[in-house]
Protein backbone atom coordinates (compact mmCIF):
# COMPACT_ATOMS: atom_id res chain seq x y z
CA UNK A 1 0.00 0.00 0.00
CA UNK A 2 2.64 2.48 1.15
CA UNK A 3 4.84 1.24 -1.64
CA UNK A 4 2.17 2.04 -4.22
CA UNK A 5 1.58 5.52 -2.85
CA UNK A 6 5.29 6.16 -2.88
CA UNK A 7 5.59 4.87 -6.43
CA UNK A 8 2.71 7.04 -7.63
CA UNK A 9 4.08 10.05 -5.84
CA UNK A 10 7.53 9.75 -7.35
CA UNK A 11 6.01 9.17 -10.78
CA UNK A 12 3.89 12.28 -10.35
CA UNK A 13 6.93 14.33 -9.35
CA UNK A 14 8.84 13.14 -12.37
CA UNK A 15 5.95 13.94 -14.70
CA UNK A 16 5.49 17.33 -13.08
CA UNK A 17 9.02 18.32 -14.10
CA UNK A 18 8.32 17.39 -17.69
CA UNK A 19 5.04 19.28 -17.63
CA UNK A 20 6.72 22.39 -16.24
CA UNK A 21 9.47 22.21 -18.85
CA UNK A 22 6.99 21.92 -21.70
CA UNK A 23 4.75 24.61 -20.19
CA UNK A 24 7.62 27.10 -19.93
CA UNK A 25 8.59 26.41 -23.51
CA UNK A 26 4.99 26.76 -24.64
CA UNK A 27 4.42 30.05 -22.83
CA UNK A 28 7.70 31.52 -24.09
CA UNK A 29 6.82 30.46 -27.60
CA UNK A 30 3.31 31.87 -27.53
CA UNK A 31 4.45 35.24 -26.17
CA UNK A 32 7.33 35.31 -28.64
CA UNK A 33 5.23 34.33 -31.65
CA UNK A 34 4.60 37.94 -32.61
CA UNK A 35 8.33 38.64 -32.88
CA UNK A 36 9.00 35.27 -34.49
CA UNK A 37 6.49 36.07 -37.23
CA UNK A 38 7.87 39.58 -37.70
CA UNK A 39 11.59 38.86 -37.69
CA UNK A 40 11.91 35.11 -38.26
CA UNK A 41 15.45 33.75 -38.29
CA UNK A 42 16.82 37.20 -39.16
CA UNK A 43 16.39 37.95 -35.47
CA UNK A 44 19.53 35.89 -34.84
CA UNK A 45 21.71 38.02 -37.11
CA UNK A 46 20.21 41.48 -36.57
CA UNK A 47 22.42 43.77 -34.51
CA UNK A 48 19.99 46.55 -33.56
CA UNK A 49 17.63 46.77 -30.62
CA UNK A 50 15.75 49.94 -31.33
CA UNK A 51 12.15 50.63 -30.38
CA UNK A 52 10.25 52.82 -32.81
CA UNK A 53 8.79 56.26 -32.19
CA UNK A 54 6.15 56.36 -29.45
CA UNK A 55 6.79 52.72 -28.61
CA UNK A 56 5.29 51.56 -31.89
CA UNK A 57 7.11 48.68 -33.51
CA UNK A 58 10.84 48.99 -33.96
CA UNK A 59 13.64 46.71 -35.06
CA UNK A 60 14.88 44.12 -32.63
CA UNK A 61 17.64 41.61 -33.10
CA UNK A 62 19.27 39.14 -30.77
CA UNK A 63 22.73 38.87 -32.30
CA UNK A 64 24.59 41.12 -29.82
CA UNK A 65 23.05 39.81 -26.60
CA UNK A 66 23.52 36.22 -27.80
CA UNK A 67 27.18 36.82 -28.68
CA UNK A 68 27.66 38.75 -25.42
CA UNK A 69 26.22 35.90 -23.37
CA UNK A 70 28.39 33.32 -25.08
CA UNK A 71 31.58 35.42 -24.85
CA UNK A 72 31.12 36.29 -21.18
CA UNK A 73 30.45 32.63 -20.42
CA UNK A 74 33.46 31.56 -22.47
CA UNK A 75 35.78 33.95 -20.61
CA UNK A 76 34.39 32.75 -17.31
CA UNK A 77 34.87 29.09 -18.19
CA UNK A 78 38.40 29.63 -19.51
CA UNK A 79 39.40 31.17 -16.21
CA UNK A 80 37.30 29.08 -13.86
CA UNK A 81 37.91 25.52 -15.08
CA UNK A 82 41.69 25.38 -14.51
CA UNK A 83 41.42 27.19 -11.19
CA UNK A 84 38.64 24.95 -9.94
CA UNK A 85 40.56 21.83 -10.95
CA UNK A 86 43.65 23.19 -9.22
CA UNK A 87 41.73 23.83 -6.02
CA UNK A 88 40.18 20.37 -6.07
CA UNK A 89 43.49 18.60 -6.69
CA UNK A 90 45.20 20.69 -4.03
CA UNK A 91 42.55 19.82 -1.47
CA UNK A 92 42.44 16.11 -2.21
CA UNK A 93 46.07 15.30 -2.90
CA UNK A 94 48.45 18.07 -1.93
CA UNK A 95 47.17 20.06 1.03
CA UNK A 96 48.21 19.42 4.58
CA UNK A 97 45.28 17.76 6.43
CA UNK A 98 45.02 20.72 8.79
CA UNK A 99 44.46 23.05 5.85
CA UNK A 100 41.77 21.01 4.11
CA UNK A 101 38.89 21.84 6.44
CA UNK A 102 39.20 25.65 6.55
CA UNK A 103 39.76 25.95 2.80
CA UNK A 104 36.81 23.67 2.04
CA UNK A 105 34.55 25.69 4.32
CA UNK A 106 35.71 28.92 2.72
CA UNK A 107 34.87 27.56 -0.72
CA UNK A 108 31.42 26.47 0.37
CA UNK A 109 30.77 29.89 1.89
CA UNK A 110 31.88 31.54 -1.31
CA UNK A 111 29.39 29.42 -3.22
CA UNK A 112 26.59 30.64 -0.96
CA UNK A 113 27.09 34.37 -1.60
CA UNK A 114 24.14 35.83 -3.55
CA UNK A 115 25.07 37.03 -7.01
CA UNK A 116 24.07 40.66 -6.42
CA UNK A 117 26.87 40.91 -3.86
CA UNK A 118 29.38 39.77 -6.46
CA UNK A 119 27.92 42.42 -8.76
CA UNK A 120 28.26 45.22 -6.23
CA UNK A 121 31.74 44.17 -5.23
CA UNK A 122 32.68 43.89 -8.88
CA UNK A 123 31.44 47.37 -9.74
CA UNK A 124 32.69 49.21 -6.70
CA UNK A 125 35.99 47.49 -6.20
CA UNK A 126 36.96 45.42 -9.19
CA UNK A 127 35.92 47.60 -12.14
CA UNK A 128 38.33 50.47 -11.28
CA UNK A 129 41.18 47.95 -11.00
CA UNK A 130 40.35 46.54 -14.44
CA UNK A 131 40.21 50.07 -15.86
CA UNK A 132 43.64 50.83 -14.42
CA UNK A 133 45.32 47.66 -15.60
CA UNK A 134 43.61 46.97 -18.94
CA UNK A 135 42.24 50.36 -19.96
CA UNK A 136 38.70 50.66 -21.28
CA UNK A 137 35.80 51.82 -19.18
CA UNK A 138 36.15 49.43 -16.27
CA UNK A 139 32.85 47.73 -16.91
CA UNK A 140 32.72 45.40 -19.88
CA UNK A 141 33.04 41.87 -21.13
CA UNK A 142 36.30 41.11 -19.31
CA UNK A 143 35.10 42.39 -15.93
CA UNK A 144 31.85 40.46 -16.23
CA UNK A 145 33.71 37.33 -17.31
CA UNK A 146 36.22 37.45 -14.46
CA UNK A 147 33.57 38.04 -11.81
CA UNK A 148 31.44 35.27 -13.32
CA UNK A 149 34.49 33.01 -13.07
CA UNK A 150 34.90 33.87 -9.40
CA UNK A 151 31.24 33.04 -8.89
CA UNK A 152 31.37 29.61 -10.47
CA UNK A 153 34.78 28.45 -9.18
CA UNK A 154 33.53 27.42 -5.73
CA UNK A 155 30.67 25.53 -7.34
CA UNK A 156 32.93 23.52 -9.58
CA UNK A 157 35.72 22.94 -7.12
CA UNK A 158 33.39 21.75 -4.35
CA UNK A 159 31.78 19.09 -6.56
CA UNK A 160 35.08 18.08 -8.16
CA UNK A 161 36.76 17.76 -4.78
CA UNK A 162 34.03 15.46 -3.49
CA UNK A 163 34.28 13.36 -6.63
CA UNK A 164 38.07 13.06 -6.39
CA UNK A 165 37.76 12.04 -2.78
CA UNK A 166 35.77 8.98 -3.82
CA UNK A 167 38.73 7.51 -5.70
CA UNK A 168 39.44 4.26 -3.82
CA UNK A 169 42.69 4.36 -1.88
CA UNK A 170 43.60 0.93 -3.26
CA UNK A 171 43.72 2.30 -6.81
CA UNK A 172 46.00 5.15 -5.88
CA UNK A 173 48.25 2.95 -3.76
CA UNK A 174 48.59 0.42 -6.56
CA UNK A 175 49.66 3.19 -8.90
CA UNK A 176 52.22 4.46 -6.43
CA UNK A 177 53.46 0.90 -5.93
CA UNK A 178 54.06 0.68 -9.67
CA UNK A 179 56.35 3.69 -9.34
CA UNK A 180 53.94 6.38 -10.57
CA UNK A 181 54.64 9.95 -9.53
CA UNK A 182 52.02 12.08 -7.81
CA UNK A 183 51.31 13.89 -11.05
CA UNK A 184 50.85 10.62 -12.89
CA UNK A 185 48.48 9.35 -10.21
CA UNK A 186 46.38 12.51 -10.52
CA UNK A 187 46.43 12.44 -14.30
CA UNK A 188 45.97 8.72 -14.92
CA UNK A 189 44.04 7.47 -11.89
CA UNK A 190 42.09 10.21 -10.16
CA UNK A 191 41.05 12.26 -13.18
CA UNK A 192 39.68 9.32 -15.21
CA UNK A 193 37.98 7.91 -12.14
CA UNK A 194 36.12 11.12 -11.32
CA UNK A 195 35.70 12.30 -14.91
CA UNK A 196 31.91 12.03 -14.90
CA UNK A 197 31.50 14.18 -11.82
CA UNK A 198 34.02 16.74 -13.05
CA UNK A 199 32.16 17.18 -16.31
CA UNK A 200 28.91 17.31 -14.39
CA UNK A 201 30.27 20.15 -12.27
CA UNK A 202 31.44 22.01 -15.36
CA UNK A 203 28.00 21.67 -16.93
CA UNK A 204 26.27 22.94 -13.81
CA UNK A 205 28.63 25.91 -13.65
CA UNK A 206 28.11 26.59 -17.33
CA UNK A 207 24.37 26.69 -16.79
CA UNK A 208 24.78 29.15 -13.97
CA UNK A 209 27.12 31.39 -15.98
CA UNK A 210 24.78 31.45 -18.99
CA UNK A 211 21.79 32.61 -17.01
CA UNK A 212 23.48 34.85 -14.46
CA UNK A 213 21.69 38.19 -14.42
CA UNK A 214 22.32 40.47 -11.45
CA UNK A 215 26.10 40.40 -11.25
CA UNK A 216 26.48 40.69 -15.00
CA UNK A 217 23.96 43.55 -15.18
CA UNK A 218 26.22 45.54 -12.89
CA UNK A 219 29.37 44.77 -14.81
CA UNK A 220 28.85 44.25 -18.50
CA UNK A 221 27.99 47.85 -19.41
CA UNK A 222 24.54 47.00 -20.84
CA UNK A 223 25.15 48.54 -24.25
CA UNK A 224 23.73 46.84 -27.33
CA UNK A 225 26.96 47.03 -29.26
CA UNK A 226 29.34 44.37 -30.51
CA UNK A 227 32.58 44.47 -28.50
CA UNK A 228 35.71 44.95 -30.55
CA UNK A 229 38.06 44.47 -27.60
CA UNK A 230 37.71 42.23 -24.60
CA UNK A 231 37.39 45.26 -22.30
CA UNK A 232 34.50 46.78 -24.28
CA UNK A 233 31.05 46.95 -22.79
CA UNK A 234 28.31 44.89 -24.39
CA UNK A 235 25.18 43.15 -23.18
CA UNK A 236 23.90 39.65 -22.53
CA UNK A 237 20.46 38.10 -22.88
CA UNK A 238 19.48 38.08 -19.18
CA UNK A 239 20.82 41.61 -18.70
CA UNK A 240 18.90 43.02 -21.64
CA UNK A 241 15.74 41.33 -20.38
CA UNK A 242 16.17 42.64 -16.83
CA UNK A 243 16.90 46.20 -17.94
CA UNK A 244 14.08 46.59 -20.42
CA UNK A 245 11.26 44.44 -19.16
CA UNK A 246 9.41 47.04 -17.11
CA UNK A 247 9.06 49.52 -19.95
CA UNK A 248 8.70 47.27 -22.97
CA UNK A 249 5.43 46.72 -24.75
CA UNK A 250 3.99 45.00 -27.81
CA UNK A 251 6.67 44.03 -30.30
CA UNK A 252 9.59 44.78 -27.97
CA UNK A 253 8.03 42.66 -25.23
CA UNK A 254 7.47 39.87 -27.69
CA UNK A 255 11.06 40.18 -28.92
CA UNK A 256 12.23 39.82 -25.35
CA UNK A 257 10.29 36.58 -25.04
CA UNK A 258 11.95 35.50 -28.27
CA UNK A 259 15.33 36.21 -26.65
CA UNK A 260 14.30 34.29 -23.56
CA UNK A 261 13.29 31.39 -25.77
CA UNK A 262 16.71 31.53 -27.43
CA UNK A 263 18.49 31.53 -24.06
CA UNK A 264 16.34 28.58 -23.07
CA UNK A 265 17.27 26.77 -26.27
CA UNK A 266 20.97 27.69 -26.09
CA UNK A 267 21.28 26.48 -22.50
CA UNK A 268 19.38 23.35 -23.39
CA UNK A 269 21.56 22.62 -26.42
CA UNK A 270 24.88 23.31 -24.69
CA UNK A 271 24.00 21.29 -21.65
CA UNK A 272 22.53 18.34 -23.53
CA UNK A 273 25.46 18.36 -25.94
CA UNK A 274 27.90 18.31 -23.04
CA UNK A 275 25.91 15.59 -21.36
CA UNK A 276 25.56 13.28 -24.33
CA UNK A 277 29.02 13.89 -25.73
CA UNK A 278 31.02 13.51 -22.56
CA UNK A 279 28.85 11.32 -20.41
CA UNK A 280 27.08 9.30 -23.05
CA UNK A 281 30.25 7.89 -24.56
CA UNK A 282 31.02 5.78 -21.56
CA UNK A 283 27.83 3.78 -21.76
Amino acid at each position, binding site marked *: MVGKIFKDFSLLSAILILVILVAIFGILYSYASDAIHTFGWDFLTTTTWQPGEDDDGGIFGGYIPIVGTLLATLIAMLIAVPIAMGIAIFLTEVAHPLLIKPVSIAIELLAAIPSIIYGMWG*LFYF*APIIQQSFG*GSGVGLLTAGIVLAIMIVPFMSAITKDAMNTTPGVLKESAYAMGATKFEVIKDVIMPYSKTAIIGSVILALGRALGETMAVAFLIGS*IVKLPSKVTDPTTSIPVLLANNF*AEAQDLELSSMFYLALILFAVSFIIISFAKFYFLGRKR
Partner: protein
Amino acid sequence: MKKLLLGSVVALAVATSANAEALKGRGASFPAPVYKAWTSAYNKATGVQVNYTPTGSGDGIKSIKKRIVDFAGSDKPLKPEVLKENKLYMFPTVVGSIVLAYNIDGVKDGELKLSREAIAAIFSGKAKMWDDEVIKKENKDVKLPHEPITVAVRADKSGTTFNFTYFLNKINPEFKVSKKPEWKAEKVVAGKSNSGVTANIKQIKNSIGYIEYSYKLKENLPAAKVQNKAGKFINPTVKSFQDAAKYASWTKEKDFYAIIGDPDGETSYPIVAATFILLPAEKAEKNKEVVKFFEWAYKNGDKVAADLGYVPLPASTKDEIAKYWAEKKIK
Protein backbone atom coordinates in the same frame (compact mmCIF):
# COMPACT_ATOMS: atom_id res chain seq x y z
CA MET B 1 20.75 49.07 -0.94
CA LYS B 2 18.79 52.30 -0.93
CA LYS B 3 16.59 50.85 -3.66
CA LEU B 4 16.06 47.74 -1.63
CA LEU B 5 15.12 49.79 1.39
CA LEU B 6 12.78 51.86 -0.71
CA GLY B 7 11.26 48.69 -2.11
CA SER B 8 10.63 47.26 1.32
CA VAL B 9 9.16 50.55 2.50
CA VAL B 10 6.78 50.52 -0.45
CA ALA B 11 5.92 46.88 0.20
CA LEU B 12 5.28 47.67 3.84
CA ALA B 13 3.15 50.66 2.94
CA VAL B 14 1.12 48.50 0.59
CA ALA B 15 0.72 45.81 3.22
CA THR B 16 -0.36 48.13 6.02
CA SER B 17 -2.87 49.99 3.94
CA ALA B 18 -4.54 47.00 2.39
CA ASN B 19 -7.85 47.63 4.11
CA ALA B 20 -7.90 51.42 3.88
CA GLU B 21 -9.15 53.17 0.75
CA ALA B 22 -5.73 53.76 -0.71
CA LEU B 23 -5.12 55.71 -3.90
CA LYS B 24 -2.89 53.86 -6.31
CA GLY B 25 -0.46 55.49 -8.67
CA ARG B 26 2.55 54.36 -10.65
CA GLY B 27 4.88 55.61 -13.33
CA ALA B 28 7.78 58.04 -13.68
CA SER B 29 10.71 57.45 -11.35
CA PHE B 30 12.09 60.97 -11.91
CA PRO B 31 9.68 62.61 -9.37
CA ALA B 32 9.49 59.55 -7.10
CA PRO B 33 11.48 61.06 -4.20
CA VAL B 34 9.20 64.09 -3.99
CA TYR B 35 5.98 62.06 -4.40
CA LYS B 36 7.17 59.78 -1.64
CA ALA B 37 7.73 62.72 0.69
CA TRP B 38 4.36 64.21 -0.22
CA THR B 39 2.39 61.00 0.24
CA SER B 40 3.78 60.32 3.69
CA ALA B 41 3.20 63.92 4.83
CA TYR B 42 -0.34 63.80 3.37
CA ASN B 43 -1.01 60.57 5.20
CA LYS B 44 0.09 62.15 8.47
CA ALA B 45 -2.01 65.24 7.88
CA THR B 46 -5.22 63.61 6.63
CA GLY B 47 -4.95 59.87 7.19
CA VAL B 48 -5.47 59.20 3.51
CA GLN B 49 -3.10 56.70 2.02
CA VAL B 50 -1.61 57.36 -1.41
CA ASN B 51 0.70 54.76 -2.88
CA TYR B 52 3.05 55.65 -5.68
CA THR B 53 5.23 52.99 -7.28
CA PRO B 54 8.09 54.33 -9.44
CA THR B 55 8.12 51.98 -12.44
CA GLY B 56 8.98 54.38 -15.25
CA SER B 57 7.00 56.75 -17.43
CA GLY B 58 6.27 54.15 -20.09
CA ASP B 59 4.81 51.79 -17.55
CA GLY B 60 2.74 54.62 -16.04
CA ILE B 61 1.21 55.50 -19.40
CA LYS B 62 0.55 51.82 -20.12
CA SER B 63 -1.10 51.33 -16.72
CA ILE B 64 -3.39 54.33 -16.94
CA LYS B 65 -4.48 53.41 -20.46
CA LYS B 66 -5.47 50.02 -19.11
CA ARG B 67 -7.10 51.75 -16.09
CA ILE B 68 -5.32 49.57 -13.53
CA VAL B 69 -4.27 52.55 -11.37
CA ASP B 70 -6.02 55.67 -10.10
CA PHE B 71 -3.36 58.00 -11.47
CA ALA B 72 -0.09 57.74 -13.36
CA GLY B 73 3.10 59.75 -13.46
CA SER B 74 4.90 60.51 -16.71
CA ASP B 75 7.90 62.66 -17.56
CA LYS B 76 6.82 62.69 -21.15
CA PRO B 77 3.76 64.88 -21.67
CA LEU B 78 1.09 63.40 -23.92
CA LYS B 79 -0.25 65.50 -26.76
CA PRO B 80 -3.84 66.77 -26.33
CA GLU B 81 -5.03 64.51 -29.19
CA VAL B 82 -3.56 61.45 -27.49
CA LEU B 83 -5.17 62.46 -24.21
CA LYS B 84 -8.56 62.82 -25.86
CA GLU B 85 -8.23 59.52 -27.64
CA ASN B 86 -7.49 57.72 -24.38
CA LYS B 87 -9.90 59.84 -22.30
CA LEU B 88 -7.20 61.18 -19.98
CA TYR B 89 -6.58 64.42 -18.13
CA MET B 90 -3.10 65.76 -17.52
CA PHE B 91 -1.40 68.39 -15.39
CA PRO B 92 2.21 69.07 -14.24
CA THR B 93 3.39 68.66 -10.64
CA VAL B 94 7.00 69.74 -10.24
CA VAL B 95 9.96 70.76 -12.34
CA GLY B 96 13.16 68.82 -12.06
CA SER B 97 16.48 69.11 -13.75
CA ILE B 98 19.10 66.94 -15.33
CA VAL B 99 22.77 67.58 -14.65
CA LEU B 100 25.89 66.46 -16.46
CA ALA B 101 27.91 64.74 -13.76
CA TYR B 102 31.49 63.68 -14.37
CA ASN B 103 34.44 61.86 -12.87
CA ILE B 104 37.73 63.45 -13.89
CA ASP B 105 40.70 63.47 -11.54
CA GLY B 106 41.40 66.98 -10.28
CA VAL B 107 38.33 68.64 -11.80
CA LYS B 108 35.98 69.75 -9.05
CA ASP B 109 32.26 70.52 -8.97
CA GLY B 110 31.32 73.34 -11.31
CA GLU B 111 34.85 73.73 -12.72
CA LEU B 112 34.04 72.16 -16.04
CA LYS B 113 32.19 74.45 -18.44
CA LEU B 114 30.38 72.70 -21.26
CA SER B 115 29.34 74.69 -24.26
CA ARG B 116 26.39 73.49 -26.32
CA GLU B 117 28.83 72.55 -29.04
CA ALA B 118 30.93 70.52 -26.59
CA ILE B 119 27.90 68.63 -25.22
CA ALA B 120 26.81 67.71 -28.73
CA ALA B 121 30.37 66.63 -29.56
CA ILE B 122 30.67 64.46 -26.45
CA PHE B 123 27.34 62.67 -26.85
CA SER B 124 27.70 62.19 -30.60
CA GLY B 125 31.24 60.83 -30.28
CA LYS B 126 32.87 63.67 -32.24
CA ALA B 127 34.94 64.59 -29.20
CA LYS B 128 36.73 61.41 -28.16
CA MET B 129 39.25 62.75 -25.65
CA TRP B 130 38.78 65.07 -22.71
CA ASP B 131 41.41 67.48 -24.09
CA ASP B 132 39.56 67.83 -27.41
CA GLU B 133 39.68 71.39 -28.79
CA VAL B 134 35.93 71.88 -28.49
CA ILE B 135 35.99 71.19 -24.74
CA LYS B 136 39.32 72.89 -24.06
CA LYS B 137 38.18 76.13 -25.69
CA GLU B 138 35.96 77.08 -22.74
CA ASN B 139 38.15 75.46 -20.07
CA LYS B 140 41.55 77.09 -20.51
CA ASP B 141 42.22 77.10 -16.76
CA VAL B 142 41.16 73.48 -16.17
CA LYS B 143 43.66 70.66 -16.55
CA LEU B 144 41.89 68.16 -18.79
CA PRO B 145 43.55 64.75 -19.25
CA HIS B 146 44.37 63.20 -22.60
CA GLU B 147 42.08 60.29 -21.86
CA PRO B 148 39.12 58.83 -23.76
CA ILE B 149 35.66 59.98 -22.67
CA THR B 150 33.27 57.33 -21.40
CA VAL B 151 29.63 58.38 -21.76
CA ALA B 152 27.25 56.99 -19.12
CA VAL B 153 23.66 56.57 -20.30
CA ARG B 154 20.48 54.76 -19.29
CA ALA B 155 20.06 51.07 -20.08
CA ASP B 156 16.28 51.25 -19.67
CA LYS B 157 13.76 53.44 -21.43
CA SER B 158 13.49 56.60 -19.46
CA GLY B 159 11.75 59.93 -19.19
CA THR B 160 15.07 61.42 -18.09
CA THR B 161 16.60 60.33 -21.38
CA PHE B 162 13.59 61.71 -23.25
CA ASN B 163 14.10 65.14 -21.69
CA PHE B 164 17.87 65.05 -22.13
CA THR B 165 17.65 64.09 -25.80
CA TYR B 166 15.06 66.85 -26.21
CA PHE B 167 17.77 69.28 -25.09
CA LEU B 168 20.38 67.66 -27.37
CA ASN B 169 17.94 67.93 -30.25
CA LYS B 170 17.60 71.66 -29.57
CA ILE B 171 21.37 72.03 -29.91
CA ASN B 172 21.70 69.80 -32.92
CA PRO B 173 18.71 68.35 -34.79
CA GLU B 174 20.77 65.27 -35.66
CA PHE B 175 19.94 63.93 -32.20
CA LYS B 176 16.63 62.09 -32.10
CA VAL B 177 14.30 62.75 -29.18
CA SER B 178 13.73 59.33 -27.67
CA LYS B 179 13.32 57.48 -24.40
CA LYS B 180 16.06 55.12 -25.51
CA PRO B 181 18.10 56.40 -28.44
CA GLU B 182 21.06 54.76 -30.10
CA TRP B 183 24.15 56.50 -28.74
CA LYS B 184 26.84 57.16 -31.31
CA ALA B 185 29.68 57.98 -28.91
CA GLU B 186 32.63 55.60 -29.00
CA LYS B 187 32.69 54.53 -25.36
CA VAL B 188 29.24 54.14 -23.89
CA VAL B 189 28.28 52.41 -20.67
CA ALA B 190 24.68 51.96 -19.62
CA GLY B 191 23.15 51.57 -16.19
CA LYS B 192 19.64 50.84 -15.04
CA SER B 193 17.74 53.83 -13.65
CA ASN B 194 19.24 57.05 -12.30
CA SER B 195 21.02 55.17 -9.53
CA GLY B 196 22.69 52.80 -12.01
CA VAL B 197 24.05 55.68 -14.09
CA THR B 198 25.18 57.47 -10.93
CA ALA B 199 27.08 54.38 -9.79
CA ASN B 200 28.74 54.04 -13.19
CA ILE B 201 29.90 57.66 -13.20
CA LYS B 202 31.23 57.25 -9.70
CA GLN B 203 33.19 54.12 -10.56
CA ILE B 204 34.48 54.89 -14.03
CA LYS B 205 37.31 57.38 -14.39
CA ASN B 206 36.96 59.99 -17.13
CA SER B 207 33.24 59.38 -17.51
CA ILE B 208 30.36 61.82 -17.93
CA GLY B 209 26.64 61.14 -17.77
CA TYR B 210 23.23 62.72 -17.35
CA ILE B 211 21.39 62.18 -14.07
CA GLU B 212 18.57 63.74 -12.14
CA TYR B 213 19.78 66.59 -9.88
CA SER B 214 18.86 64.92 -6.56
CA TYR B 215 21.19 62.00 -7.38
CA LYS B 216 24.05 64.46 -7.84
CA LEU B 217 23.23 65.90 -4.42
CA LYS B 218 22.99 62.52 -2.75
CA GLU B 219 26.26 61.17 -4.13
CA ASN B 220 28.01 64.51 -4.14
CA LEU B 221 29.19 64.13 -7.71
CA PRO B 222 30.77 67.05 -9.56
CA ALA B 223 28.54 68.50 -12.28
CA ALA B 224 29.28 70.78 -15.19
CA LYS B 225 28.18 74.34 -15.88
CA VAL B 226 26.01 74.17 -18.97
CA GLN B 227 25.69 76.84 -21.62
CA ASN B 228 22.10 77.99 -22.01
CA LYS B 229 20.23 79.37 -25.00
CA ALA B 230 21.42 82.90 -24.18
CA GLY B 231 25.03 81.69 -24.29
CA LYS B 232 25.72 81.92 -20.55
CA PHE B 233 27.33 79.11 -18.52
CA ILE B 234 24.96 78.20 -15.71
CA ASN B 235 25.63 76.21 -12.58
CA PRO B 236 22.90 73.71 -11.72
CA THR B 237 21.25 75.19 -8.63
CA VAL B 238 17.66 75.40 -7.43
CA LYS B 239 17.78 79.12 -8.19
CA SER B 240 18.75 78.61 -11.83
CA PHE B 241 16.06 75.91 -12.18
CA GLN B 242 13.46 78.34 -10.85
CA ASP B 243 14.57 80.93 -13.34
CA ALA B 244 14.15 78.35 -16.08
CA ALA B 245 10.68 77.28 -14.89
CA LYS B 246 9.37 80.83 -15.29
CA TYR B 247 9.56 80.48 -19.05
CA ALA B 248 7.29 77.43 -19.25
CA SER B 249 4.20 78.15 -21.30
CA TRP B 250 1.52 75.97 -19.79
CA THR B 251 -2.11 76.51 -20.67
CA LYS B 252 -5.15 74.57 -19.59
CA GLU B 253 -6.51 74.63 -23.13
CA LYS B 254 -3.65 72.41 -24.23
CA ASP B 255 -3.84 70.18 -21.12
CA PHE B 256 -0.54 71.78 -20.10
CA TYR B 257 1.24 70.04 -22.95
CA ALA B 258 4.65 71.69 -23.11
CA ILE B 259 8.18 70.46 -22.98
CA ILE B 260 10.09 73.09 -21.07
CA GLY B 261 13.67 72.13 -21.91
CA ASP B 262 16.13 74.77 -23.16
CA PRO B 263 14.16 77.85 -22.09
CA ASP B 264 14.99 81.53 -22.72
CA GLY B 265 16.53 83.75 -20.07
CA GLU B 266 20.04 84.81 -19.15
CA THR B 267 20.05 82.92 -15.84
CA SER B 268 18.06 79.81 -16.77
CA TYR B 269 19.65 76.39 -16.37
CA PRO B 270 18.87 74.78 -19.73
CA ILE B 271 18.23 71.07 -19.02
CA VAL B 272 14.99 71.22 -17.05
CA ALA B 273 11.92 69.04 -17.32
CA ALA B 274 8.45 68.99 -15.85
CA THR B 275 6.76 65.83 -14.74
CA PHE B 276 3.07 65.14 -15.22
CA ILE B 277 0.10 63.33 -13.71
CA LEU B 278 -2.42 61.48 -15.85
CA LEU B 279 -6.00 60.85 -14.71
CA PRO B 280 -8.73 58.68 -16.25
CA ALA B 281 -11.51 61.08 -17.32
CA GLU B 282 -14.48 58.86 -16.49
CA LYS B 283 -13.61 58.16 -12.85
CA ALA B 284 -14.89 61.44 -11.41
CA GLU B 285 -15.12 60.35 -7.78
CA LYS B 286 -11.65 58.81 -7.55
CA ASN B 287 -10.21 61.77 -9.46
CA LYS B 288 -11.57 64.14 -6.84
CA GLU B 289 -9.61 62.28 -4.17
CA VAL B 290 -6.43 62.33 -6.26
CA VAL B 291 -6.89 66.02 -7.00
CA LYS B 292 -7.41 66.70 -3.30
CA PHE B 293 -3.99 65.17 -2.67
CA PHE B 294 -2.24 67.26 -5.30
CA GLU B 295 -4.07 70.40 -4.21
CA TRP B 296 -2.75 69.75 -0.72
CA ALA B 297 0.74 69.11 -2.12
CA TYR B 298 0.74 72.36 -4.12
CA LYS B 299 -0.20 74.22 -0.96
CA ASN B 300 2.05 72.44 1.56
CA GLY B 301 4.70 70.59 -0.41
CA ASP B 302 6.85 73.33 -1.92
CA LYS B 303 9.49 73.31 0.76
CA VAL B 304 9.91 69.53 0.73
CA ALA B 305 10.21 69.60 -3.05
CA ALA B 306 12.83 72.34 -2.97
CA ASP B 307 14.82 70.48 -0.31
CA LEU B 308 14.96 67.47 -2.60
CA GLY B 309 16.24 69.58 -5.47
CA TYR B 310 12.98 70.02 -7.39
CA VAL B 311 11.36 73.29 -8.34
CA PRO B 312 7.77 73.88 -7.24
CA LEU B 313 5.45 75.20 -9.94
CA PRO B 314 5.04 78.97 -10.20
CA ALA B 315 1.89 80.31 -8.50
CA SER B 316 0.35 81.33 -11.82
CA THR B 317 0.62 77.76 -13.11
CA LYS B 318 -0.98 76.41 -9.95
CA ASP B 319 -3.91 78.79 -10.46
CA GLU B 320 -4.23 77.64 -14.03
CA ILE B 321 -4.26 74.00 -12.89
CA ALA B 322 -6.97 74.77 -10.31
CA LYS B 323 -9.08 76.26 -13.09
CA TYR B 324 -8.44 73.17 -15.23
CA TRP B 325 -9.66 70.93 -12.40
CA ALA B 326 -12.78 73.04 -11.96
CA GLU B 327 -13.46 72.96 -15.69
CA LYS B 328 -13.17 69.18 -15.81
CA LYS B 329 -15.36 68.95 -12.69
CA ILE B 330 -12.83 66.90 -10.75
CA LYS B 331 -12.30 69.34 -7.93
